[in-house]
């Protein structure tokens, strides 16, 4: 229990979180993946995000898995994200395995669950590559090009800009609450539970001023948007064209596509050879 409160409090050191998230968003502009055209990457994701669900061949899945591991490496994803990915994939299927054994399954369970884990892993690594590897602005333009609602691409660009501000503000509010508060003693099991409850209550209470401040800020944001003719620009095709003019397919994109196709073909061939 003590470890738990500590680990939660550690995680809540805002600087750590902020650094990780910002690093993930803006820290790797110079990677191979970030330099690719977002449209190419999105189509690549359409393939690697959907196809694995329909494949049951372990060799083929392993081949695809190796490939997405390489692309994830090339995109230099922040360690925190990778850690979350591992925890997510393995706790989920591990838990299912334990429960299935509990209900009288045997070792025949392992194979289908392994296949399912591989599928999930391939799909999520592909999404990590595309959505974390890309600069948010480029990602938003790519989505816009495919005709996604403009609100979504606005939300992505806006989220990446507002997040550091919001986090800092939340941290300040939380610290001021901590300074004024009188936390219960954390001795004994009951004391520790009470302490944990106190921390959670503090976080919830901190949302009261945060909500009011954010309300003010969102009004300013929307008014600024209106002043710049945001909703008019939404309907004007000329504006959209200007925003999408930065997208260009280069030779690197071609190389990336060729490598992907060759790799997938080799995996298919390998699985056919083994089978």
């Amino acid at each position: 229990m003590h470890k738990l409160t500590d680990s939660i409090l550690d995680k809540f050191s805002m600087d750590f979180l902020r650094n990780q998230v910002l690093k993930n968003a803006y820290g790797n502009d110079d990677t191979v993946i970030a330099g690719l055209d977002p449209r190419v990457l999105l189509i690549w994701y359409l393939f690697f995000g959907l196809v694995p669900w329909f494949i049951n061949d372990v060799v083929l899945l392993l081949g695809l898995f190796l490939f997405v591991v390489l692309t994830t490496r090339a995109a230099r994803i922040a360690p925190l994200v990778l850690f979350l990915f591992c925890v997510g994939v393995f706790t989920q299927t591990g838990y299912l395995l334990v429960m299935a054994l509990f209900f009288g399954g045997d070792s025949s369970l392992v194979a289908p669950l392994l296949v399912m884990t591989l599928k999930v892993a391939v799909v999520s690594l592909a999404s990590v590559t595309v959505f974390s590897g890309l600069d948010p602005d480029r990602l938003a333009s790519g989505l816009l090009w495919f005709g996604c609602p403009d609100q979504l691409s606005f939300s992505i660009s806006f989220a990446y800009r507002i997040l550091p501000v919001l986090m800092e503000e939340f941290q300040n509010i939380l610290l001021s609450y901590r300074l004024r508060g009188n936390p219960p003693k954390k001795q004994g099991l009951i004391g520790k539970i009470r302490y944990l409850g106190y921390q959670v209550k503090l976080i919830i209470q901190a949302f009261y001023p945060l909500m009011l401040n954010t309300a003010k800020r969102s009004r300013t944001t929307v008014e600024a948007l209106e002043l710049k003719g945001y909703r008019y620009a939404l309907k004007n095709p000329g504006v959209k064209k200007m925003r999408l003019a930065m997208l260009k397919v280069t030779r690197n994109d071609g190389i990336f596509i060729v490598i992907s196709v060759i790799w997938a073909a080799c995996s298919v061939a390998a699985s056919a050879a083994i089978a």
Partner: protein
Amino acid sequence: MDVKSRMTQSQKMMVFVLSMSLYGLATLFTELIPSFQIGIVEFSVEYFLFIPLTLAMLFDPLSAALGAATGELVFSEIMLGQFGGLGELEKFLTVTIGVYIAGRIVKDPRNRRVVAAASIIGVTVQQLMGCVVDILKVQFAVEDFEAVAGLPESVFFTEGFACLNDILFSGILFCMLPAMYLVPRLYGKIEPLLGVKPRDKETQLEGGVFTPKNIALILAGFAAAIGAELLASGGYELIDWEADWAGNSTSIIVGIIVALAVTAVAAGLIRSRAGRKASAEYRNF
């Protein structure tokens, strides 16, 4: 809707932005806080759904609901790179529906009892829909679901238990109690900041909670959620069954997906070309 209560388009946008940034921030934290288990009871700060619930009870429910769902998608899925593709549509729709229903129920935000009931109903609706979709998902993703001994029971058990656990634990601790605390306190304070009149007898939403149109919309949304999830994780049953005579189902599906990709590119090209033409015309004016 009453004329007086009608929010302007930009005020709705404000609610959207507000709900998106707050709930996004909160889901970012919940994604990062580790959950811990005592036995098989999982205690996780599953979600801070009280934020969109509070906003939906005070402002326009639909904007708040859509904002919350978008915020979750953008902040915790796309920013952390955990975007699950089409499957995320399921979460998006269930969150929207749950929050929207809860927001419509409340007539007077100062009445704590109604606020509590509404938030629990919202959570329950959201969790139940998520649970059903999850069970269906595993059924489609695992080959020979029924044939694997022990798997069906364990899936039903774990999913059902997780659902109940979320409703009782997260629902009461992290949705109902905070909403009861926040909604009456924020009432009358947060509305002027957006230039909106507080919700009262005159400005409340007309037509009750469940107009036929609402119910139809909600059902359609739920069906779409199931459809999206199944499309994301399968379409499997159908293909498997055909595979008896089609020989190699994988190649067919890969073909379909390649075709989809090509179509997407073509659509994008056509669109951008049309945009160019339109903008050229626009310049001629």
